């Protein structure tokens, strides 16, 4: 009896990834039936490229959610970093792409550091700090650009190739996303700081008492999120070949949706990178597939909201059941 209970309990943990994988297969089969264009090599490549920016951001948001925080400012950070980099490149076409990437990362890092300091040092609620910064940064984007766009013809070829170039037939974006995943996997699983993020999230008080620099960990998490958003901003502009004031408006919701789909608990401390990757893939697939099966674009936002809410709800229900089972085990 006891061992069966334990098996069930452990089963529920890995159940999510399997379930997500099954769901992905199911959804793609369903879409394929409706539109045979879906599972062609070309579309799969588009889908992966499309999902790669989302999946870069998802890594940062995973860490933020692990510490019980939230970051609403990333859409604006993408816009500002993309806009500044595009304007720099438009003014001096000679700037090498790697410098553009670094510039974007630095801008994101600064914004992330401000949010991180507000949250960790001054106890501002994450949602308030990031809501305020979201508007400040969005306003800055308009101010910096003077309301103008930077269009494709103003950007030099090397800059655009950040997103369109290929190495061994694989798009740069996919490679960047994979590299970030590998680093993040190593960081979260094998380094001390990575484990400290989990510790701070699952019990902040216990973490602090046992000597973990809680404030520094929390600040770091927002800095990573900001840096990744800054990077994503450059990639975004290079991919869509245009920088506008309203770039990526509301994109933070896509990221949050993908992360909660991946099974990250919003009460902190639990969530795996593998789940989050699948969440990002599934979400990228949904937004790629909806136009293919003739769903009006006006439905997208509503569907997105329902996806977030359902995922959060399932998380809570599963967690409640797990806790019940844990209590049952204790009784025997």
């Amino acid at each position, binding site marked *: 009896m006891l061992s069966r209970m334990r098996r069930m309990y452990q089963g529920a943990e890995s159940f999510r990834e399997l379930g997500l994988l099954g769901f992905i297969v199911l959804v793609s089969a369903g879409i394929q039936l409706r539109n045979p264009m879906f599972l062609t090599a070309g579309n799969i490549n588009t889908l992966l490229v499309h999902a790669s920016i989302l999946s870069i951001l998802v890594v940062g948001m995973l860490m933020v959610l692990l510490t019980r925080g939230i970051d609403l400012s990333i859409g604006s950070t993408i816009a500002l970093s993309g806009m500044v980099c595009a304007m720099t490149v438009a003014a001096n076409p000679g700037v090498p792409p790697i410098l553009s990437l670094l510039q974007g990362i630095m801008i994101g890092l600064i914004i992330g550091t401000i949010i991180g300091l507000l949250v960790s040092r001054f106890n*501002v609620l994450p949602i308030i700090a990031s*809501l*305020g910064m979201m508007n400040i940064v969005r*306003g800055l984007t*308009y101010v910096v650009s003077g*309301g103008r766009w930077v269009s494709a013809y103003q950007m030099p070829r090397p800059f655009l190739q950040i997103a369109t170039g290929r190495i061994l037939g694989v798009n740069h974006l996919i490679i960047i996303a994979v590299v970030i995943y590998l680093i993040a996997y190593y960081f979260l699983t094998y380094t001390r700081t990575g484990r400290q993020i989990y510790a701070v999230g699952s019990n902040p008080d216990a973490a602090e008492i046992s000597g973990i620099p809680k404030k520094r960990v929390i600040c770091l998490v927002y800095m990573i999120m900001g840096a990744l958003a800054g990077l994503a901003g450059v990639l975004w502009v290079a991919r869509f070949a245009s920088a506008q004031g309203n770039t990526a408006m509301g994109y933070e919701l896509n990221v949050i949706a993908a992360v909660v789909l991946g099974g990250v608990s919003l009460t902190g401390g639990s969530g795996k990178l593998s789940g989050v990757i699948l969440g990002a893939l599934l979400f990228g697939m949904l937004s790629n597939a909806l136009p293919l099966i003739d769903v009006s674009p006006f*439905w997208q936002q509503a569907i997105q*909201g329902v996806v977030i809410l359902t995922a959060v*709800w399932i998380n*809570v229900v599963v967690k409640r059941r797990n806790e019940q089972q844990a209590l049952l085990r204790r009784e025997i």
Partner: protein
Amino acid sequence: MPEHMIQLDKPRDWKSFFLQWEWLLVLIFILIHVMNSFLSPYYLNVNTFIRTPQTFLDKAFIVFPMTFIIILGSIDVSVGSTVALSSVIMAVSYNAGMPMGLAMVLCLAVSSLCGLFNGFLLARYHELSSAIVTISTMTIYRGFAYVILEDQAAGGFPGWFESFGWGSVGPVPVMSIAFIVCAGIFGMLLHRTTFGRCLYGMGHNHKACLYSGINIKKIKMIVSMLTGLMAGVTAIFLTSRMGSTRPNVATGYELEVIAMVVLGGVSTAGGKGKMIGPILAVFIVGYLSYGLGLINVSAQVLLIIIGGLLIASVLISNIRFSRKEQKKSSPALFGVEADEKT
């Protein structure tokens, strides 16, 4: 019982009375008027004080229930979307042949339902944070508004409907009267009823309230429903003032409303704040944006200023709070303090 809890009930001397946050707000309020009258020679006249509030009072109706919500220690970012959805439904149902009066009732019903849904989720699944629940419902409500109206605008309301936004009784605009009435009701509710005391209690110590038999779920649902209802009122006034509606109306209202409440001295940690603070803050933010509009400051810069205002006011109140805590906790025993936190 820690000492400072008893101290709270002592009558205040005049010095601490004038050192309250609200007096600082009054000072800022006067300063803004002085600044505005320097900015524009046409600023100082009777119309500024009687007619101008019409331009910013519509969102102020949400400030009252948002004060409740933040006193509870939670947050609601879905109010802007609720305004959009209820306004869109009102316009569409009127255009489909429903009488305007009924359409307005429908608008209030829809918005209350939106609020109630938030409240239901928060009460039923207490481990969910209000941030994530309202973020998802924010997306859902706005999404439905887009589904209903796509990229169209809907309007063509009857003439009398306009009087909500622009009409006046004698010299006083209808909107201001409604605002004063609501302020009275919500102020009484917070400061003179058991319900209001329960809000403070829940903000301070959730568990203690649960164990002392307060129906926490009911209170959460009521507060969320009130938020929805007032979002509906805002929708009516806003739609009436604009004459038509689109799915993207009231974008960013949640930011402004939360900024007003927090600027009004309501602590985001819960359990602290008075109704008068947010009311003053409504006028501060309103006249500030009006004055900046006079010198052609663009909407985007205003976005920066309001975002900065939100962060700055939370920052200041947090620093003030931690200073007070330090003062208090220095002579007290360590154990007492630890007990209190849990």
